């Protein structure tokens, strides 16, 4: 275990969130796997997480169905509800867990987004949050009136303008301005409600807001971008930042960087929580957990899925190749590869990408399937309940993370072991709450009151 003197936060407790697996690496070909798209499955995961005292339930964002070569991506889970609509329905069947909508600043108007999120916040008694994401993906823009309109360089400048417009809308209506008696002169103290005026390069908004504030003041702001622009925006405006940094030293470096940025902005270190996304697979023994992890890999990475992964680089159908054999000895079809998979997160040309794959495959003598596993294995933890509880406790006690945003491997049972086994083990270590202490998401996360959080200058 850790040297006690190194423990910076000896009383710190973990915060858990759960990311609903609407697309991508989730087991669907199993007798236990339920529908990924039905409301009942969303409700089941949310209720399990709430039983496990999770802070938050997340839905992702994706405004275009993924495509592959000349057709649609058929091998992956696909199909999702509108995020705020499904969360509003979940507000009625849950009572404590936070409800986080990932919403794209590029393809949602701030006027609509502010009204809809504030509504969820009121309907849930202060459990709503917005995970701010941006895109300049013109391919997604083909589904929208405005099209792919945003230059890449303006992505974060635009996102901050959008976010400010939303924050100003929420701030315009102070709490306790609606009458408590039918004899009051007016229904609300109209003079106390500000008119939002937001005019800049991106928006011309003049608006009387319509939704009063919730018990948590306004929805919590999450930010997920890991680039320089994303980190800077989070350190100025967000209440929570996601990250992909799950390896301990890497996570600690990231957390130190974020804390330094907070100090530089005059914000307290505890005013922004750091939640890396991770898959956590536990078993009663380490061997059992590893067997389970291998079964998940085998079941999610079908031969079709493995071939589809490399087909994106080669730009052509490779179904005649054996996934247990070597990489195809052919050149990629350069001009026909685009970002239509919606997943391309690198800046390599197809030729560079395939060259990189060849290098890795040759160095490790990988088959196609092994190579794809090398690039797609989930970040996270596999081990016995006790070992994983010790490891996660170390992260929070050393300030490498405030908690984790967990990716269940299956719907609706993929969270059961976490809630039934890992949570009690963490509670035994004093590293996880034994009940919800507050009622709002802001309280669950231990964030400062909203007045303090919003004492940030509003000039962009």
């Amino acid at each position, binding site marked *: 275990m850790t040297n006690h003197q190194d423990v910076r936060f000896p009383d710190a407790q973990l915060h858990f969130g759960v990311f609903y697996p609407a697309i991508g690496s989730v087991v669907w070909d199993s007798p236990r796997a339920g529908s990924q798209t039905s409301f009942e499955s969303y409700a089941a995961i949310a209720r399990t997480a709430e039983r496990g005292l999770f802070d938050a339930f997340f839905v992702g964002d994706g405004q275009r169905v993924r495509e592959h070569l000349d057709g649609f991506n058929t091998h992956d889970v696909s199909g999702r509800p509108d995020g705020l609509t499904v969360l509003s*329905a979940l507000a*009625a069947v849950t009572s404590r867990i936070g409800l986080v909508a990932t919403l794209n600043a590029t393809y949602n108007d701030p*006027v609509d987004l502010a009204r*809809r999120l504030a509504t969820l916040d009121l309907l849930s*008694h202060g459990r709503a949050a917005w995970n701010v994401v941006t895109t300049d993906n013109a391919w997604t823009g*083909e*589904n929208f*009136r405005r099209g792919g309109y945003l230059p890449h360089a303006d992505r974060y400048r635009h996102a901050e303008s959008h976010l400010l417009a939303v924050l100003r809308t929420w701030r315009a209506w102070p709490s306790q301005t609606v009458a408590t008696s039918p004899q009051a002169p007016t229904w609300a103290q109209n003079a106390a409600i500000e008119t939002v005026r937001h005019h800049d390069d991106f928006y011309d908004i003049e608006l009387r807001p*319509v939704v009063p504030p919730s018990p948590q003041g306004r929805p919590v702001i999450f930010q997920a971008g890991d680039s320089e622009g994303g980190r800077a925006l989070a350190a100025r405006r967000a209440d929570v930042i996601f990250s992909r940094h799950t390896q301990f030293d890497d996570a600690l470096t990231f957390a130190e960087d974020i804390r330094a940025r907070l100090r530089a902005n005059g914000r307290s270190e505890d005013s922004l929580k750091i939640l890396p996304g991770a898959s956590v697979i536990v078993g009663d023994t380490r061997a059992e957990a590893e067997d389970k992890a291998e079964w998940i890999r085998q079941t999610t990475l079908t031969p079709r899925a493995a071939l589809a992964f490399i087909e994106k680089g080669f730009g052509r159908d490779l179904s005649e190749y054996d996934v247990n054999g070597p990489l195809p000895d052919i050149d990629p079809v350069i001009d026909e590869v685009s970002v239509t998979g919606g997943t391309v997160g690198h800046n390599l040309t197809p030729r560079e990408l395939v060259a990189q794959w060849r290098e890795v495959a040759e160095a490790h003598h990988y088959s196609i399937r092994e190579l794809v596993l090398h690039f797609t294995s989930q970040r996270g933890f596999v081990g016995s309940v006790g070992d994983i509880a010790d490891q996660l406790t170390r992260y929070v006690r050393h300030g490498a993370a405030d908690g984790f945003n967990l990716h269940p491997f299956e719907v609706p049972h993929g969270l059961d072991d976490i809630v039934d086994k890992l949570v009690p083990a963490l509670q035994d270590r004093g590293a996880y709450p034994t009940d919800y202490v507050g009622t709002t998401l802001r309280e669950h996360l231990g964030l400062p009151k909203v007045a303090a959080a919003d004492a940030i200058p509003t000039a962009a």
Partner: protein
Amino acid sequence: MSSFFVAVVLDGDGAHPAAWRAADHRPDTLLSPERILSQVAEAERYGFDLIQFTDRQVPDQGTDGIVGQLDAVSLGAYVGPTTSTIGIAVGAQVLDPEPFHLAAQFASLDHASLGRAAWIVRADNDPLVAAAYGHPERDAEWVAVEVGEVIEAVRLLWDSWEDGTVIRDSASGRYIDGDKLHHIDFVGEHFSVRGPLITPRPTQGQPVVLADTSLLQQALAAREASGRVSRIDGPLVDVALVTGTNRVAVHEQAAAARDLGAPLVFVEVEVVLDTDTGTAAERLSRLDADEPWGTGTRLRVVGSASEVSDALAGLAEVVDGVLLHPAVLDADLPELGRLVLPDLARRSVRQIPAVPGQDGAAAATTLRERLGLPRPANVFAA
């Protein structure tokens, strides 16, 4: 006639501008989720066919009354899992929101309510809305084109996943059948949408679509003028809403709505009833003393429960249903539920629908089934 449908608008504290002063709750609990759930449960228990929430992006200007308002789609979704039979209609705007988001929102509302969603097409062309979204006010021609095109794009998006697209086929490793997903490639005068939708086909195939008859008229006229051919098979909307301050006017509008191809016609009616605090006329004059309720294009029935029943029974001879705007929800909704709906059942104007699970009643039905509307064929199905 034995199938006359009764829908009720649950906006604010009621249709009268002074309704908030006569409500049974404090003004600051109007938007509380508990109050809303209890009112919706009451409407379902009484046996109304449909409730309506209307979306408005900006408040009335210069009013002493209610300026608070929840997003109506979210509100509809919130009450979905707590109800089991009543239809949930949401009045959503088409002029600024993205058609793609509208389609996903209503598909999701339909999934979360197990097939009880309806969309009332709204096109508030208001200078305050224009200022909020930062564009000049739209002219009537622009609006007419937009209404028809947004409805068409949304309906195509609902069809963009055929039934049975998710196959989860172990043998081929395919989760979906790619042949059943479709780009809609809608190109209108003001926008285009590629598709498919992110959300699988709604439970009802398509949620029920309602629109005001004059809006429908303008949209169809604009389409005809443009020479564009619609890709929607059959009528543009399922239910046309009509108004008219007397029975003759309602009759004329209903005939016009049927000429436009609407399968069902509902009339909008304002109601004030006798309660234990006074007769309908006394209540109305007290409310009007606080703030007058101007008369518009709708029929207004002010009277006892049996007088309201008489009026509705008369309307049942010319239209398929009624959309009620009660003056004060807390006062008029219980009178409608306890007296008027049973009275209509006694007169065989309509039955009070059975609640599933009680007295051996059948399982819950979708709103389309309840209204006798067919499940729409998918325009993309071979």
